[in-house]
């Protein structure tokens, strides 16, 4: 393997490019579109967590609850909407469960996301418990799970991913 030990001289070489001074030249432009996130509560306690999060200001995130079999979602205003329609231009779905109810809905949503190539995340909000019904219900359908999540993990996750 050729091992060049000489010092690269160019102004774009790592030695220059990675300095704090050079960071000032990183081009500055607004980050494009935030994510199109859908947040779905799977039970009543989850609904109140989702409702609290929904009250904050978001880019394109939308918030729902659902019950089995999950083909229909209910908006925070109480309107029933079609799951397939709501997923249309989404790229991330976050499911929130506290007790494992409506496991069938989790499966429906998970399957719908899978065929559409939508990222799924799950929050298992069962304080103090590392294993729970909620975990069993969500894990096959969430590429990433937070266990046990605290109620404010939802807003934290949404904020961090610019939802």
């Amino acid at each position, binding site marked *: *393997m050729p091992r060049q030990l000489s010092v690269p001289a160019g102004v774009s*070489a*790592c030695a220059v490019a990675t300095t704090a001074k050079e960071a000032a030249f*990183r081009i500055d432009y607004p980050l494009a579109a935030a994510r199109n996130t859908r947040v779905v509560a799977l039970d009543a306690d989850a609904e109140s967590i989702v409702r609290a999060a929904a009250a904050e200001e978001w880019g394109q995130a939308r918030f729902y609850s659902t019950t089995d079999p999950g083909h229909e979602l209910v908006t925070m205003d109480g309107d029933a909407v079609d799951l397939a329609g709501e997923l249309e231009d989404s790229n991330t779905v*976050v499911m929130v469960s506290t007790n494992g109810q409506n496991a069938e809905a989790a499966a429906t949503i998970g399957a719908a996301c899978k065929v559409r190539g939508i*990222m799924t995340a799950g929050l298992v909000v069962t304080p103090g418990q590392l294993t729970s019904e909620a975990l069993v219900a969500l894990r096959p359908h969430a590429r990433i799970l937070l*266990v*046990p999540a605290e109620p404010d*993990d939802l807003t934290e*996750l949404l904020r961090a991913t610019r939802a």
Partner: protein
Amino acid sequence: MLRTEINELLTQTGPGTPMGELFRRYWQPVLLAEELPENDCPPVRAKILSERLIAFRDSEGRYGLMDEFCAHRGVSLWFARNEQGGLRCPYHGWKYDVTGQAIEVPSEPETSNFCANVKLKSYPMVKLGDVLWAYLGDPEKQPPLPEWEFVTVPEGHAFTSKRLQECNWLQALEGGIDSSHVSFLHSGNLDSDPLFKGSKGNQYNKGDLKPFFEVVDYEGGLLIGARRNAEENHYYWRVTPWVLPNFTMVPPRGDHPVHGHFWVPIDDEHCWAYSFDYHPTRHLTDVEVAAMRAGMGVHSENDAAYRPVANKDNDYLMDREAQRRGETFSGIRGIALQDSSIQESMGPIVDRTKERLVATDAGIIKARQKLRKSALALQEGVEPVGNRPQDQKVRSVAIVLPADQAFVEGIGEAMIAKPGVPQTTV
């Protein structure tokens, strides 16, 4: 994405900053033991948490860690003579013991009590394993000595190295938490590195490039489980523990030694990556130690000042041909430099208001949240976790479990370090 204030909160660790105060509740690696190899050896400069310190070992083998600069006129005590029970400043001969206490001020009359009032700020420093540990915080709050398994295994079971990383500590830590980069950045090393190759787990790794993740909140920090498909109805789990604030461990592979890191802030734009390997139940072999010394596995080939030989001044010895051949994914040789090269390229302190995190970054999101909450809670008088022995007796795990089993349940006691008990590994 993080707000600027939170990025600053998490990345600044100097005295008086919230994160700095949090770090000052923990014993931290400050030097490798090999840096002070014998009594009366030369003193060593040791900067940590934005404090310039001098470390030395006196004639009786006691370790001292104190303010680098002489109380008389501010000369660096790196120039000092280490003689007969203390460090003597070469300028006017003031002499200090390991506690920083001045024990001779030659310009004063023989019977003067002047030197009793001269004391350099000093901190306790102890040797455990291959590492010298320091505690920079309030003496009243000093936690018990560290009980990490890599410093408590019998002699010959462990090897520790360190390397300079020219960026903020959090960037480095986040690499240790982010197990999703392994399938990319380090692909190529699984088969070639003598410290990884040949395990059954590697096949699962390569057979399933899109792992699922579970981030489990536990007492000392987080457990990050990456699951991949194994045989029928089974998952191969790799479980990475993060213990607050800056300890991470890589899951084991086969009977290879297991490894991990401490990411120690030097100042806000530099950190030490302490990298260790150990085996709980056997000596490291000569072949393994030779590979570690040669910079394989998580270690690196360094110069005398512990700066990697491949560094930003030589573009990390980027080898485009090896990159093209797929021998290394990034063109940089060795896991350690693959990590540090890309993390340094982000800049000394990356602007986290500009990042585009995705859901699989949840481990990083959660770790930042826990760090922020711990630092803020400490200001309210709530003592942090991670500095108690029970938090430190932790192991990473690699295991195959039935598909319907929660990994925390499945690994059970396997994540608890117990002397003489083999690691759980695939």
